[in-house]
Each structure stands twice: as structure tokens, then as C-alpha cells.
């Protein structure tokens, strides 16, 4: 079982956390801090396994992590998981994140060059990374390891979201353009008609 997946950067700032066992928020933060503390002081050329921290797990649990540029990907797992398998899984996840964010077309050309994940992708799209991860690990158990299958499922779901108009139904750029117009107080009730036209794909609720 995987007990937790933590992604944080070189300064210990969480970028994505997923616990498969309940911890209160402050405990979660403590765990992140502790894990960061354990992981960050290790050189890059030492082994990627770490006997678990004191807060999460105990003797049966291990931290398995990978360090990519500015990010740490840490899986906290128990003895039923294969250490090397999880290491591979982290790599697979990272590649998938990359593929989903950048090269959506060339799925076949998965390759080592995707091994570095861009922190900004994670910062601004935490939700999307969650959705990707959900296709890899579910409830603490590995759901799928076939990269193509995972990417395909993620894609299909994204497409579905798009067909529904997405969360920001209006093209994000248009909206932010409006937002950045620097009009101190936009009287919201005026010009309803006009603005409505600019927001094409709003679905009725």
C-alpha cells in the first residue's frame, strides 16, 4: 500500500499532497516538513530509499523518492510494495505529467527527455496533476502502470471536460484580459448584454 504521495520543491513548499490515510491538516504539514527535512539533506547520489519518518508509518514504512531539478516526488509505502517498482512508477508518473502538459500528440515518443518536470506545471495545475495521479494510484494501490493506457484515459477525460466547456468556460485569456484591464471598479450590473456575448460557451445551470 502507498500511504502518501508528497511532491514538494527544494524549499519544502508542497506542490501536491495526497494522503491515503487520514491526517488532520496540521499533521499533514508536519509530515511534509519532516519528510522534507529527511529528504533534502541527502545527496543526489545516495540511494532513494529512506526508512520512514517518525510521524507517518513506522518501521514497516519506507520513503521512496526521486529528485527532479526543483522537485521532490516522495512516496511513502509499506513493505508490500516493491521498492524498485515504485521508483519506476514515480518516473512513469513524471513522464505522464510531462506528456499531458506538453506533448499531447506524440505519446509514442516517450523518452528520457521528459524526465524533468517543470515546477510551474504543478504550481498552476495542481488539480490536473491530481487527476493524472488518480489514474496511476487509487486509494493507495497501484491502479495502472501502462503509460499509454493512463495517458489515454487522462486525455479522454480532459476532452470530456472541454466538451462541457471546462471550469473556466470562457476562454481563460479573454477573462484575464478583462481582469487586467485595470478598471478600478467595474459596475457589474451594467452592459450585461455586451459582456454576455463575449462569453460564448457558458452552459446553463
Amino acid at each position, binding site marked *: 500500500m502507498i500511504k502518501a504521495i508528497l511532491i514538494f520543491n527544494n524549499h519544502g513548499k*508542497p506542490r*501536491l*499532497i*495526497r494522503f*491515503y490515510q*487520514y491526517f*488532520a*491538516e496540521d499533521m*499533514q*504539514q508536519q509530515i511534509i516538513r519532516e519528510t522534507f527535512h529527511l529528504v533534502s539533506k*541527502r*545527496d543526489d*547520489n*545516495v*540511494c*532513494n*530509499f*529512506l*526508512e520512514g519518518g517518525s510521524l507517518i508509518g513506522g518501521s514497516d514504512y519506507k520513503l521512496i523518492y526521486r529528485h527532479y531539478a526543483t522537485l521532490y516526488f516522495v512516496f511513502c509505502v509499506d513493505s*508490500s510494495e*516493491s*521498492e*524498485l*517498482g515504485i521508483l*519506476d512508477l514515480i518516473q512513469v508518473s513524471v513522464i505522464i505529467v510531462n506528456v499531458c502538459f506538453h506533448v499531447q500528440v506524440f505519446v509514442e515518443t516517450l523518452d528520457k527527455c521528459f524526465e524533468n518536470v517543470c515546477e510551474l506545471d504543478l*504550481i*498552476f495545475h*495542481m*488539480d490536473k496533476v*491530481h*487527476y493524472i495521479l488518480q489514474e496511476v494510484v*487509487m*486509494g*493507495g*494501490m*497501484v*491502479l*495502472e*502502470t*501502462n503509460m499509454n*493506457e493512463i495517458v489515454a484515459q487522462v486525455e479522454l477525460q480532459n476532452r*470530456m*471536460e472541454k466538451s*462541457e466547456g471546462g*471550469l473556466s*468556460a*470562457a476562454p*481563460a485569456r479573454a477573462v*484575464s484580459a*478583462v*481582469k487586467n484591464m485595470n478598471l478600478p471598479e467595474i459596475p*457589474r*450590473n451594467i452592459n*450585461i448584454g455586451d*459582456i*454576455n456575448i463575449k*462569453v460564448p460557451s*457558458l452552459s*446553463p*445551470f
Partner: protein
Amino acid sequence: MALKIVKGSIDRMFDKNLQDLVRGIRNHKEDEAKYISTCIDEIKQELKQDNIAVKANAVCKLTYLQMLGYDVSWAAFNIVEVMSSSKFTYKRIGYLAASQCFHEGTDVIMLTTNQIRKDLSSPNQYDTGVALTGLSCFVTPDLARDLANDIMTLMSHTKPYIRKKAVLIMYKVFLKYPESLRPAFPRLKEKLEDPDPGVQSAAVNVICELARRNPKNYLSLAPLFFKLMTSSTNNWVLIKIIKLFGALTPLEPRLGKKLIEPLTNLIHSTSAMSLLYECVNTVIAVLISLSSGMPNHSASIQLCVQKLRILIEDSDQNLKYLGLLAMSKILKTHPKSVQSHKDLILQCLDDKDESIRLRALDLLYGMVSKKNLMEIVKKLMLHVDKAEGTTYRDELLTKIIDICSQSNYQYITNFEWYISILVELTRLEGTRHGHLIASQMLDVAIRVKAIRAFAVAQMAMLLDNAHLLTGNMQRNGICEVLYAAAWICGEFSEHLEDPNQTLEAMLRPKVATLPGHIQAVYVQNAAKLFATVLRKHEGATDSQAAQETSQLLVERLPLFVQSANLEVQERASCILQLVKYIQKLQQKDVEVAEEVSALFAGELNPVAPKAQKKVPVPEGLDLDAWINEPPSESESEDEKPKAVFAKEETKHSRPRHTEVDEKELARRREARKQEQANNPFYIKSSPSSQKVYQDAPGVEHIPVVQIDLSVPLKVPGMPMSDQYLKLEEERRQKEKAEKKKKEKKKKREKHGKGKKHDSGPESEEDITPAHHVDIVTEEMPENALPSDDDDKDPNDPHKALDIDLDKPLADTEKLPVRTHRSEPLKSPGEDGDVESVPQEPKKRSSKEKKEKKKDKDKDRKKSKEEKKKKKKHKHDAEDEPAELPAEEPVKSEETNEVATPPTSTSAEASDLDFWLSSTPVAPTAKEVAAPAPAPAPAPETSLAAAPDSEADEPKDAEPEEVKCSKHKKKKQKKEKEKEEKKEKKKKRHHHHHHHSDGGEDSVQNGTMEEEEPLPPMSNYCLLAENSYIKMVYDIQGNLQDGSQVVVSVIFENKSDSFLKSMEFNVLDSLNSKLQRPEGAGPHDGLVVPFQLPPGVSNEARFIFSVQSIVMPQKLKGTLTFIVKSEDSSTHEKLDFKLHFTCTSYLITTPCYSDAYAKLLESGDLKSSSLRLEGVNMPFHHLLARICFHHHFSVVERIDSCASMYSRSIQGHHVCLLVKTADQTVSIDAKCDEPSLLGNVLDEIKQTFSQC
């Protein structure tokens, strides 16, 4: 309204989305908290709006804030709102938020049940997927219980994407709702052979996870897993299976033998390091389980060690780490093969990677021998000095102590050396393990009598130099050793060279800065020392010195009397008064030494840590009984149990000593000794009096031999452990030389050494300890039970999953609504046990279940049953004949069983036995899958290999038992049809049994339902079919809305062409109408929301509204569709008739007998009755049939009479009283709606007329 929407969307444009929030937080680095709090305020506003998009956006932002550590549980309700949005986009956000912050304590979770159920059955697979994913994170016992059945249904979903998720989540469901394990297990097992690799992998995953905690229950799956292992190419699956075998082999060594071969092949062939590593691991587990007897056993070990060495030598630190890890497992059983790699391991101690050093340390633990202990510890001591970072140093420290103290100090030949090591370790700065060192010092000093003099000298020195320890140390760190030092000096003060000086050291003012508990020991032991000093001086008639000592105490003790620590204060003032009194006596020249030492006389023996727990409960003492009866009881009764604890102790102990005469005592002692000597569980201690040994010469014991003073005892200054190393070398040399002469003599001596004798893995014979020491065994209570199970955590959730899965399912065991079983055969003889076990926990839940589950599950159940019924009712020419022959064998099988009761559970086991034994160590992996080469008519092998072989092949020679099991299995695998039937029967059968024992649980019985792992279609009954398409359907009542029924239709494309534009239309009657979307005309068809490629099937649901449910109904309908082949497309249509029976409006509803009685008494019900002649079936079958086909539940059953209950979707109560006598069944029925009742009775009659 429109305006409102528009307004909402505009508002939205100006709301921050997640990206804006993140950007904002990044731009407000200095006042992040403030910024976030304003954001939270905004979010709160957004959540108040009606627009779901705004809410979803807000929830999305909350998810981000949750990650930053903000508690967002206040928005739980909004999250639920977003979850229930109909749009996938929002639903996904809602579920994500829920999975991040919901937990068992979240109260709104109970609101989600219906929403989740709806999502689970959504036609959109991603809605279902999202719901499953979310649920996996926040499933609670309630949710698990309520949804278990729905999830189980999804395990047979047409889409592998859903199947794999459903399979995986079952594990979580099992954890929260252990009762679901047995009903769901057969299907789970079936998924091991799912055509989709993802589903298969999920099933392997779940079963491995289950088996890891309770391996013995899964042994019977070994053949299946073996097959998978030899056939699968998915490394993930292989790893899991191999890991699982690692857990199973300790339980079944024969399995290990079978595994060695294929595993070795894998080790040789695989290129995946992860797989290689796991194989090696499992081979190790196998080798451990096979204590001996494998001919090429050592070859396998060699192979493993060799491969591990390659891993350890690899430059990849990860492989190195894992190699060491696996090595430590081999070490436990085959230390010799590891010891040859000592060089490699010592090398790893110098690795820059801490994890690797720690692993290497672990290995060292097992590599020590008497010969190399000193050398290794010396090396570690060097590391201690070098190590930076206290964690690693502390780890080293504990390892040193572990290594030295392991198995009762088995490898220590020279305790002086060990004491010096401990003393050296006290020089460590800032260690947390002072108490560890202290306890070692105490342990050694107490248990090794020969070393006491030396230990005391060292401790005195420590006390003298206490300032070194306390000066720059943290208070709670190393100063703990002073605790030990003070106690040892006090307790064994007779060995002290200069007690005066030590006494002085213990009373220095600086001591007052030590922690309280240490000061207390100081004070107490100062008193002991004082006693020693007095005795010494009185003998020498040097009263002056003694008086000076008293004076010293009187002067120094007031410091402690003022201590803030109560313990210190109390002891100090006591002792101060005592000393003052003694002083007075001394001034009168009274001899006091004798009396003062009497205060501290006697010796303490070490007590084993678990001793207290192991005191057996005396016979006749019931710890659960009341000590004080509830007030009304008379007091005289209470006294007995009390006496056991208190009175006897206090009252008896003193008078008895005087009363019981010496003879009696001696006699008793003799008797007890005799008893102890004969009791194998009694761990013989060496009490302080040595007489015991003489009394029982036969008992293995450790003689106390005088110290062989080859090493000088006095070491001036701080001890240096190194010098012992040299001395030891020299001594060994000398001894070797001497040895030849003394060989014979020594052997005898060694014999006496007892414990040490059989220990070291190296040629220990060469090494004799420097001192012959008596390691006093820890005392255990008499008759201690040698139980070792005190380590289990009672709170482990997996404990609840320790469930025997091979036992046939009892009737009580079913998921809230539908059940499912694949172990259909159960001999009646077993019924009793089976039921008594699972029933207990069920009772509780079944009642709740009853209430809650009713609603949801009714629908399904109903439809299913209906279907069944229809099958029979309808004149389905094809079905009928197929059914009959199928039932025949079942009956015979049953009778068969009655004749040979001792089968089914044992059958499973014997199957496994057979598998394990029949193919003796298969030459290749594949071999096992193929029919066994052996001539033995192996039933089990043929099962694994050739599933098509007929059940009735000649095997008369086989024992009845095996035959039976074979039968069973085959059926299971091959003849699903048949099995289904059989199962049905079985179920009824059990069902019945069950009722006869306990009416309480009868409420459950309505839920007996077919849930066999069939292709989903087979559960439905035929609606219509032609050469293009086949439709089967299923009607479910809707409890929420009493006027609705849901008809699920599965369309199967039988042609080679593409079917599209399907339209489903029904000619409405006055009473029943197809619900069409708003705006559609009353005669418009409903578009089936999918197209069918060739050979594909899919399910659509249609809702009908029903006015009156008292009459059965038939609706005519038509399906139109376009058949599109490569070159042409044609328009086709198919007519059908939908049949709504009255039973299909009934919902199995449990009812308590008291409520039932009230209902009957109320007098609102009209009655009617029915007589069935010539019903030739056992009564319990009859009842089961009614329950099964007509959605009734048994309320109560007395002999050949039973009351039953059901309820319609519109709330009509239907009560039956069924009686039977001589093939005649009379049913008296009552219902508040006579025509409904009449129709139901007709339908019942029809059911029985068909059988």
C-alpha cells in the same frame, strides 16, 4: 432567471480561479497569511452563490489551500454540492476536494451515499470512475456497507476501466466492512483471470494485500497464482504474486519446493532488476521455510547470495541498499553463507550513504561471533568517534549494544571488556541513549556476578568523574548512566575499594543539579554505602571514622531534603533522621552496623520483562466475575475473591512464617522443585542460594565458577577497551597452546557452560571465555505459559479480515442486497459451525442494514428476481429444457452430499494438497499448468490444466471425497449455467437451514439473490431478439418514488454490421407510461444514447411511471434502428412486449416479528388464501423459492409453518402464513390491497406449478 444566470457568469469572470489564486499567493510572499485569509473570505462569498460553476471554482481553490495546511472542513457541505453536479467537470472537482479532506469524522459524508450510488451507476464511465476514485479515499464503514453491493456489481462492468477500479476499491470496502469479504470473494477471485491485464493486476493487487495480513486463508489460491506466475508477462503482476508467495511459503513448505524451480528460472532470465530482486527475496523466504531436506538447497542459496553480491557491488546505491536488505534476511537462517561476504559488508559501513550504513549495521548484528565480536565492535567504536550527526551515532550506539547483548550476551567472552565499552560510550556527547547504556550496566552487573567487583570499581570512577558527564551534557542525556552507577555502587558496595570516597562523591552539592529520579537513587544508595562503611569501621574498632561518615551525611543530606522533587525529599528526610539517630547511638558506643545493614539485606534477582503478564491465572479464579456483587448481594460472598489478592498477602505472610514449621517448609520446597524440574515450561532460574543446583543435578544449569584471573582486575584510570582486545589475542594464543594438553578436561568444563556452548556460528570451540560467568536468567513466574502472542496489535484493522474464505458461505453472509457465492456445496453437517461463526458479527449489522439498505437494493433485487421468475413463467421454449437437466444433477449432488457429509471445507484443503503433491517439483514452470505427467488420475491437476474435461470421466477408484471436490470445481469453472442453478438451490437450502436455527436473522433472507459471476446479460430475461439485435431486460422498483420503475435493457449487436440511431418506443397504457424528456410528444421514441459496433452490447435505462400497481401489465413496444454495413444501410425494427408482474412491484423488506404481529392485529388487512397440491419439495426450499422469486422475507418459522412479509413500492403490506402438510401447502395471505394480493398469489401459484 435568465438574468440571474447571466449575472452569475459575469460575477464568475471576476472571481479568481485557481491560477489567479496561486499567482496571488506568489505575489504576496510577505503577507501570505493575510492574503489567503482574504481569499478565503472571497471563497466563502462564492460558495454562497447559486451558480454551481462558481462553487466548483471556489472548491477547487479550497483544495489548493488545503494543501497549504488550511482546514477547509467547514466547506464540506459545499463540496458535496459540487460532487452532485451533473457535469463531469464539476463533479471531478468535488470528488477531488472530498478525497483530500473528507474522513470518517466528516458528518456530511452520510449525505453522499445516494449521490455516490447514482454516480456509480451512471452511464458515463468517467462519472463512475471519478466516484470510485473519490470513494477509495474517504470510504467509511457506513458507505462501505451501503455501497458494497453496487461496487460488486461494477466488478463485472463491461468497461475494463471501471472493472479495475471497482476491483481495487473492494479492498477498502473489506477493510471498513469485513462482512463483505466472503460474499465478494468469489467474484474477486474470478477477476484474477479477467481478460484485461489492468483488471487482472488490480485483482492480484487486492488479493495480495489481503493475503499479506492473513496468509493462511489464501493458501488455497496458490495453484491459481502459480498459473498466473508462469503465464503472466506483466512485471507488476509478477512482482506482486512473487511477493505473495513469499508470504505463503512459511505456511506451506511444499509450496516452496514447487516454487524454487520457476523462481530460479526467472532469476536467470529476467532483465528487470525489480523482478530479480523480488524473486531473490521469495527464494530466500522459501529457503527459510524449508528448514532442510532440499537436495540442491545450498545451490539456491549460493545463487541468491551471488546475485545479491552483484547488487551490492553495483554502483547504483538503490541496488546496493536492497542487496543489503535481502542479505539480512538470508542471515537469519544461513549466516554462514553471508559471513563469507564480511569484507563487502564492512566496506559498506564506510559508505557515504547513511541508509546503506544502517543496513550494513543490521547485517553486522548477525555476523558477530565470539571470535570477531571485539574486532567488529572496535570498528564500530571508531565510527562512533567519526560520525557526525547524532542520529547515526545514536544508531551506532544502539547497534553496539544490540550486538553485544544479543541472545543473552552469547558472544561476549570478556565482560570486563564490555563494561569498559559501556563506560567509553558514556563519553558520547548529546546522545539520547543514556538510559540504554544505564540499563545495560545494571543488567550486566546484576546478572554477571563475577563481574561485579570490576563493575563497581568502574562505576565508582564514573561517579567520581560525574562532573565530566554532567558538566556539558544536556540533563536528560548521558547523565542517566549515573543512575546505574549510583545504584551499582550502593547495591554491591561490599566490592568497593574505598566506600568513603564514593560516598563523598555521591553527596557533592553538584548532584543537586541532576534530574530528580537520579538524585533519589543517589540518596538511597548513599544510605547503603553508609551501612557498608559502618560495618567496615566497626569491625576495625575505629569509631572515629564511622562517626565522621555520619557527620558527613548529616551535613550533606539537608541539601536533598530541600529538593523540589518529592521522591528525593522524602527519601532524604527519612535517611537524615535515621542517620541522626545512628549518630546518637554511635556517641553512646552502641554497635549499630549490623542493624543498619539489615535494612538493605537481601539480593534482587532480575525479573523477565514479560513475567508479570505470564503469571497464570489460578484455577477457579474468574477475573471477569464481580468482586463486589451489585449492591443488593450479601457481603459474605464477596470475601472469597478478595482474599486472593489482599488479605492473604497481608495477613498470612507474617504469621505463617512463624507458624509453619521448618519441616513443612522443606517439604513444600521439595515438592515445588520437583514440579519445576518436571515442567518444561518453567524457565529455570538460578536463585541466589546455590543449594538448588545440588538438589537438582539433572537440570541444565549454569554453575558459578570462580573467576579465572588471567586478566588483572584493577585498571587504573578510565578503562580502555582496546587493551582487552590485545589481551584477548594473547590469551587465545596461550589457550590454544594449552588446549592440546587439557583437551579432555576442557570439554567437561564446556559442558557446564550450558548456554554459551551451542552458540557461535564459527568454530567457537577454540574460544573460551575469559571468565566463566554466571549469567543469571531472568525470573519468570512459576507455571508461566510460553505464549508469545503478546505482540499483536489489537487495533490492526486487518485482524477483522482474518476470515476463512474456503468455508462455504452461510446464509447470513450476504451483502446488503444481493449475494453471491461460488462455494456452493456445503454438507449439512457443517451448517452449524459455519453459521455460528459469521453470525455473531452479523446480527448487529444486519439490523441496521435492514433499514438502510432496503431502499437502494430493493430495486435490483426485485428486478432480478422478477427476471428469474419470468424466465420460468414465460414460455421460453429454449430456456426451459436447458434448465431442467441442469437442475437434475444438482439434486443428485445434494443427496450425494448428505450421504458423505465430511467434505466441503476439507475438500478445498485436499485440493491444495493434491496440487502440491501431485506434480512433484515440476521440472519446468509450464509443466504445472499442463496435465500432470504422473499416471495418477489427478482431479485437481486436470482442473488447472484442462478445464474442459468432463465431470464424469472415470474415476471411480478415487475416494468419494476427492470426487466430490472435483465435481464442484469443475462445475464452477465450466458449467456456469449449471452452477448457477445449483447455487440457487444451495442458497435456498442454506437459507433454510439458517432459518431453522435462528429466526432473528430471518430478515436477511429476502436478499438471497443470484449474483453469480455470470456475464452480466445472463441475469436479465429476454425481451426480444432477431438476427441483428438481442434485447434482455430487468425491471427495478424505485423506492424513492412509489410510482416509478426502472427498466434496464441490454442491447446486444448480433450482426456484423454497425447499429445506430436506435430508438426505443413503447405504446403507453393509461396505467404505465414511458417517461420522455420534456417537450417530447407522447408517442415519440427515446433515442438510445449509444451506437453498437458489431458484437458489442450496452445497457440503457428507461423510466416508466406507473399509476396503479395492483395489476400485472404488458406493454407493447418497438425498437427501430439502422443497420449500417460497409456498403448499405437499412432500417429495421423489432417489436417486443414488456411484462410488469405484480411481484416486480414488491420489494423485499425485512420485518420484525413484533411489528409483524402488530400489523396483523391492526385489522386493516384483507385476507385471501391459496392451496397448492402436490408440492414435492422440502419446506425450506419452498420458503426459499417464495423469498427468491417473490421478494418476501421470512419473519418467523416454526416447524412447518412460517410467516413472511413483503412490501410494495407504494407501501402496501403483504403478509403470508405458509403451512405445509403432506405435499399440500396452504398459504393464508393478508394485504391491504386485495387485488394486488390476488395477483401475487396467482403468480406464486404459477411459480410452483412450473416446478
